[in-house]
């Protein structure tokens, strides 16, 4: 069973991709929900709002503990910001991934774009960068870059993309994550 963090953001879109892959999944809104899942997707949205709600629901603590015991996590965009141990232009939340990330680093919505990204072990996928962050520095394994900045990284069982494959009819990254959970 794969959980999708469902506090705010595009979690329905992640669910649709998992459904299309016939991967068992459920929305996670409470620490009790988290106990039922083997892996977790952290969707896009506003990191300020999601961070606040993570704390208040007790999910911040619960996710932190599970992740330390090796629960696989796949995070997109805002999810990446929530995982970083250093955030430029925002608060840090879970501090699970060794990276410095800058919020809205490409600029405002006017600077949002979509692009084909070639990812090691996964292949070429289409992704949307929506007011996306930039990973400035990381000790994690870099699986893809765009204009010299890492855009897909993996630290042990945590997979991070700064863009959204889930709104681009793209299944390959989710497929890869489903295998990580198994």
């Amino acid at each position: 069973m794969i959980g999708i963090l469902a506090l705010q953001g595009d979690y329905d879109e992640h669910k649709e991709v998992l459904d299309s892959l016939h991967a068992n999944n459920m929305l996670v809104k409470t620490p009790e929900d988290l106990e039922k899942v083997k892996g977790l997707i952290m969707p896009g949205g506003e990191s300020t709002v999601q961070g606040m709600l993570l704390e208040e629901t007790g999910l911040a603590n619960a996710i932190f503990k599970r992740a330390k015991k090796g629960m696989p996590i796949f995070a997109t965009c805002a999810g990446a910001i929530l995982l970083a141990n250093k955030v430029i232009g925002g608060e840090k939340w879970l501090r699970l991934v060794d990276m410095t990330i800058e919020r809205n680093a490409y600029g405002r919505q006017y600077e949002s774009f979509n692009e084909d990204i070639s990812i090691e072990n996964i292949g070429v996928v289409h992704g949307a960068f929506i007011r996306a962050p930039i990973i400035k520095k990381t000790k994690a394994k870099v699986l893809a870059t765009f204009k010299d900045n890492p855009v897909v990284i993996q630290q042990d069982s945590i997979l991070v993309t700064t863009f959204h494959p889930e709104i681009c009819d793209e299944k390959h990254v989710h497929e890869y994550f489903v295998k990580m959970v198994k």
Partner: protein
Amino acid sequence: MVVKEGLAKMLKHGVIMDVVTADQAKVAEKAGAVAVMALERVPSDIRAHGGVARMSDPEMITQIMETVSIPVMAKSRIGHHVEAQILEALKVDFVDESEVLTPADEHAHVDKTQFTVPFVCGARDLGEALRRINEGAAMIRTKGEAGTGNVVEAVRHMKTMNADIDKVVHMSKAQLEKLAKEYKVPVQLLEKTQKLGRLPAVNFAAGGIATPADAALMMQLGCDGVFVGSGIFKSQHPEKMATAIVHAVLYYNNPEKLAAISAGLKEPMKGLEIPGLEIKMQER
């Protein structure tokens, strides 16, 4: 369109709040707004003030953009593509082509396909929503009746939309083609609605939402999120009301939580009955 609709999708399950100053914008961000709508007057003050309501001063919009890190939206008049161009030049994150302002064109909306900035537009039923989507809107919201603190019209619009979609789901190809002519939209949009069983765009509630219970009601009716206009900063305790509405959107299906969220909020904004209104913004 992926990029425009993308931002709308990131706002889902969130609350977008009207703010008239940088300080209010900060309060909204801190309370958990996913975005703010920067405007000179909230709808209830536009009603009280009278006269022609126009796009806000770029200086105040810019100030708000510089103050918060969440997306900033701003309103243009219906059909006023130059106001929309100005807002795009300011690099606001979303333009609301809004009936809350005095319309500039009674026959045509802005051709939103010509813009890089995404647009949100109001709708009262499926036909209106699909016409706006066909013009390039990336996001739809119910019109409701803005500035009244009365949720009755938003409920009417969302229920009408749901009933319209229910009918479409069971239609034959010939019926869809007939309805497309009636709605004045390409049949492909109706086919997409039928396939998805929902509006083929992010659909928020707006117009008259004043309490956490109102917000949860709209979420239970199937909205993807809510706009709160006058409801927050015209209430007695805006900080509390803002936080409460954010929580109500998260726990919209949990009456025990909603009871706790609704407790001790002091006075919500004073509401207005719809029949006595001088101006019905939704008819614009």
